[in-house]
């Protein structure tokens, strides 16, 4: 399966995102959606499959050298390695920005926070003192 990673230069809360997220996706990511068509904060990328269908999103919130990553795999597309693909691309983006660590916060609204935490720790994230899950950015990720 080939997936494509595309930066959204001016991300907005459009119909495409609304369809992929739904109430479950919002709960899983803790995203508070703005009004229909309004700009979204942070840097956003969408993932499409070879047929052009949007299969996921990843976004990065950087401030004073730190970077929070959040991602969502579209319903019906889970279990195919897309989450791993998105995290790897977000790590690559972080490396390109000179960032040394990325972290994720599992929101209290997540339907299965224990599963999400296990998934992240299984992908090299460790629970930090402030409760977030953090991973050292591998800078060779820029060139992979």
């Amino acid at each position, binding site marked *: 399966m080939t997936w494509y990673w595309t*930066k959204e*230069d*001016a991300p907005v809360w459009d119909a495409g995102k609304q369809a992929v997220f739904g109430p479950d996706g919002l709960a899983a990511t803790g995203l508070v959606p*703005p009004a229909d068509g309004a*700009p*979204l*904060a*942070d*840097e956003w990328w969408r993932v499409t499959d070879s047929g052009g269908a949007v299969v996921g999103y990843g976004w*990065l*919130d*950087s*401030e*004073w*050298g*730190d970077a*929070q990553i959040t991602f969502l795999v579209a319903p019906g597309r889970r279990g195919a390695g897309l989450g791993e693909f998105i995290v790897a691309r977000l790590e690559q983006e972080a490396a*390109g*920005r*000179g*960032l*040394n*660590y990325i972290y994720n*916060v599992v929101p209290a609204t997540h339907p299965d926070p224990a599963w999400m935490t296990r998934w992240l720790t299984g992908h090299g994230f460790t629970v*930090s*003192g*402030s*409760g*977030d899950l953090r991973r*050292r950015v591998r800078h060779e990720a820029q060139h992979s």
Partner: protein
Amino acid sequence: MTAADYDEKIPNNVDLREDRRLQRALESWQPNFLDWWESMGPTLPTQDVYLRTAVNVGREGWAHFGHVPMRDYRWGIFLAERDAGRQIGFGQHKGEPPWQQVPGEYRADLQRLIVIQGDTEPASVEQQRNLGATAPSLYDLRNLFQVNVEEGRHLWAMVYLLHAYFGREGREEAEELLHRNSGSVDAPRILGAFNEETPDWLSFYMFTYFTDRDGKYQLGTLKESGFDPLSRTCEFMLKEEAHHMMVGTTGVDRVVERTAQVMVENDTDDVAALGAIPLPVIQKYLNFHYSVSLDLFGSETSTNVANYYTAGIKGRWLEDRRRDDHKLTDDGIMVEALTPEGEIGQTEVSALTGLNTDLRREYIADCAGGVKRWNRILEQAGLAQRLKLPHIAFNRKVGAFSGIEASPDGEQLAAEEWQRRQGQWLPTDTDKTHVRSLMRPVYERGKIAAWIAPPRQGINGQPFDYDYVHLS
């Protein structure tokens, strides 16, 4: 409350002796800090240095000057005086009394912010540890060490907050602050810009002007925090930080002054062979340090920073001087962006999510003051050349312009043109080699290297030829 207690093992003005458990915890961290200072601090052996030590946090006479062996420097914990009438100045808690303990719902965010701030303090000491070997004068060497010991004290300030208010997790984070090291492959410092060695004194002055200034603006936002101990800690740190700004500002002043002098005396722009740093090279160093520092503010929009503001944990620069409702829920701001056509432009976003941009703009306006000052030196020398800040899209790795290349004038460039021309705007290996070739130590009282002018005044009323440092 304001006078520091110097009878204690850890000087402080927070009544540490009243909390034995906290005192023991910090006293057990102290030897680890000293080990870190020995292994990662300045490498040049010294007997003693003419240093400023904080003794009081009040307006008058807050510091004492004297010759001190650096290992015996009294790193302490000082918070600005408590303002009994203070109210939180912004966000959803505006008008409420500030918090004396960490609110549970903001604990993780506050801890993260304190750890990041704390991580930068020892990082810069590590970056600058070898600079003493090439100091242009004893005056400059003393200033370097003053910056270093105060960055060490700023680490103490953040470690105190972690120990006093964040329990076991805070203590673990305090240990980690000593385990991460600048440039380490396995455990680097958090911010990318704090992982490169400061290789020469021009870089040091640029770093203290541009990158330390970025730190000043971050501290300014934390000074507004509803968490009162953090606010008071940052307020006092800003007082010390002013000296670090002075070292950068006057350091670049003196490099520009000397270059201008050599240009005029020899009626040439090509001063490299005459032992000075050519103006175009100074401009390239400025371009590099400024653009890298712009990246430290993060992307143009940020959900986290909006949440921090609404929660009352991180405000804006000089929040009380802003003439708005200090909540920003209905306000907008224009931020830098690429247009749908891929050109450099702006777009309007919520003022809350645009707070990184707001802070970056305050910083840019401040940076412009330095350039104006340096150009005045050129003007007074009768020279037509001028320095300038590059365009905000130049050499950016973070945010809206990270995917494009732009010249210092803001002209968008194709990648191959950027590759071909970047040596015109950023320091090349040749530039760096020339600057480093000038870095020879001058340790004789009253003498100074040929590439930099002497300061107009010494430290604490002492003359330039004072014995600021006694080497071993």
